[in-house]
């Protein structure tokens, strides 16, 4: 094996320029493929960034005043969702992964020492964190079941609020703030980039605490739902709305009374777009790569022609056809492998450089963020390379195997 490798390196060194030029074709193919994939990923990240910190399959349901007369009731009734609605939906609809209440009271003043912030105040149950599972909690903890059970006076503070009250870089966990005149302990900080960062202006407290302080019983303003894996979000949305509208005597077509938004809709469009872009990228990338392969194949054919006599001598001395074929295949695989690997390294390097540049200068390109190549694509590229190397060498190698020693040694 080692000997074989040495034989190959030797022949490659015989034709340095030619080797380098052919290798460049494959290098360039992989390089471009990686760059394109990275750029595509950058675009994808950029667009998903616009989606905020939300999961991509949530459904949110809220209410208003009815606009359609139904069952003898005039339009204009105000509909209010209650926790009992959630229980009913849970019982009657299958395929729900998470369902959570979300209640808010009017914005109010939050203060710490002499600093104030006017923030939206939300009351949340434990399930809420499974809706907002992509929202990072940078400091402290989330509220937990004990907080809920004991209606503890604890709050989670959005990063924007925290910055305003405590100053940047200060750790507010464990400090007490006044939330609408009630002293409460800060237990954690979160950063939610939804609504262009405005969601980080919020303050969250356990739902039970909110009920104790502000009354309102089991009212909830919104209901959040996530479907189980493999369950169609649009079907689920329809079923949940059906249950709620029946319970509240809202006409099925009345979208003012009970309304909903399904994130799966825009997510689906964007995902479709990216599948299209990815197909295009692979098409172009593989095209470039194919040009590289043809180059290698061509050169190998020339090499075999040139080395006809040598191959003939080797055969006369006892080289089996397998030995000849495997040597040539190894040669082409080596060239494509090394060239392609360099292409991969340079491509990823350039992407990282761009990503680093964007990060460190803080420059924001519209719809472009964090270009990178995922592991799977890199592995695919590696396998592609080895396959390509073998493919490029196969035809010339088989041709070489057919050379008979007698005619080869006659060739000058």
């Amino acid at each position, binding site marked *: 094996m080692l000997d074989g490798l040495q034989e190959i390196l030797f022949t490659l060194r015989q034709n340095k320029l030619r080797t380098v030029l052919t290798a460049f074709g494959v290098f360039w193919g992989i390089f471009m493929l990686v760059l394109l994939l990275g750029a595509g990923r950058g675009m994808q990240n950029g667009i998903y960034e616009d989606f905020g910190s939300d999961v991509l399959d949530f459904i949110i349901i809220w209410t208003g005043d009815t606009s359609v007369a139904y069952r003898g009731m005039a339009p204009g009734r105000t509909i209010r969702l209650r926790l009992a609605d959630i229980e009913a939906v849970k019982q009657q609809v299958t395929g729900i992964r998470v369902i959570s209440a979300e209640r808010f009271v009017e914005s109010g003043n939050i203060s710490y020492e002499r600093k104030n912030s006017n923030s939206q105040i939300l009351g949340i149950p434990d399930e809420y964190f499974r809706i907002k599972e992509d929202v990072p909690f940078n400091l402290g903890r989330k509220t937990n079941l004990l907080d809920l059970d004991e209606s503890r006076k604890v709050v989670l503070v959005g990063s924007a609020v925290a910055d305003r009250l405590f100053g940047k870089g200060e750790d507010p966990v464990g400090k007490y703030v006044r939330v609408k005149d009630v002293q409460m302990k800060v237990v954690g900080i979160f950063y939610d980039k939804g609504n262009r960062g405005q969601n980080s202006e919020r303050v969250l407290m356990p739902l039970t605490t909110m009920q104790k302080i502000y009354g309102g019983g089991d009212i909830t303003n919104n209901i959040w739902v996530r479907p189980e894996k493999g369950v169609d979000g649009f079907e689920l949305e329809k079923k949940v709305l059906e249950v709620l509208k029946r319970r509240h005597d809202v006409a099925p077509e009345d979208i003012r009374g009970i309304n909903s938004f399904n994130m799966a809709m825009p997510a689906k469009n964007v995902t479709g777009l990216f599948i299209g872009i990815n197909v295009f990228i692979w098409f172009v990338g593989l095209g470039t790569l194919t040009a590289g392969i043809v180059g290698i194949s061509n050169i190998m054919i020339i090499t075999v022609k040139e080395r006809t006599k040598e191959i003939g001598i080797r055969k006369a001395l006892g080289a089996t*056809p*397998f030995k000849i074929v495997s040597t040539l295949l190894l040669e082409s695989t080596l060239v494509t492998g090394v060239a392609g690997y360099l292409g991969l390294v340079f491509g990823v390097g350039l992407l990282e450089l761009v990503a680093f540049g964007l990060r460190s200068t803080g420059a924001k390109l519209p719809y472009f963020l964090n270009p990178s190549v995922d592991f799977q694509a890199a592995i695919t590229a590696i396998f592609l390379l080895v396959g390509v190397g073998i493919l490029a060498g196969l035809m010339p190698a088989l041709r070489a195997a057919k050379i008979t020693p*007698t005619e080869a040694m006659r060739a000058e």
Partner: protein
Amino acid sequence: MIKLQDVHKYYRTGDQSLHVLKGIDLHIREGELVSIMGSSGSGKSTLLNILGVLDGYDSGSYLLAGHSVNNLKETEAARLRNKLLGFVFQSFNLLPFKNAAENVALPLYYQGVGRKERNHRAEQFLDMVGLSDRKDFMPNQLSGGQKQRVAIARALVANPKVILADEPTGQLDSQSTEDIVSLLKDIHRRGNTMIIVTHEQDIADQTERQIILKDGVATSSREFPLPQAVTN
């Protein structure tokens, strides 16, 4: 060692067929030094290719050191060549980008012999042909006679049963020719079976037996070896 019986060979070009070997019967015993003579077109190269398992034949039988050589697969043929035969060519056929020692070691490489052992044996055989001081020389740094010595060392390195030399002195001046012929005879005296293809009578005269090919048929000139004194 070598037994050919009624070997026929045709060359076909299109619908024309050329009958080159018309029933060759040949028996070469172990340790013999034989020359094959014949004018060009007599089928001498064809016979050599068949003897060297480089080419097939159409009918008859060929027994080489107990192995039946008939319609072999290329892989099997390569193994036989590697194990049983050593070639010396008119145009030396050294690999130009390998030095003398590497050229000599090549058959061992195809036998899967390790590098150290290979180099050791290559040097041994270079020493035997009197080129131990040239082992690192590239072929283009060697004279014709030296090249042929390297080629002879290469033919011997795998301890073959038979050495086939195809016009080994065809490209050499008279001095080198003399050297090479005496080297070949020297090797023969150590017990090697050797077949020399040549068209030079004075070289053929130095062998134990001459086989003359004419119009695709072989005739053996002398059936018993000459006394040593005469060959020397």
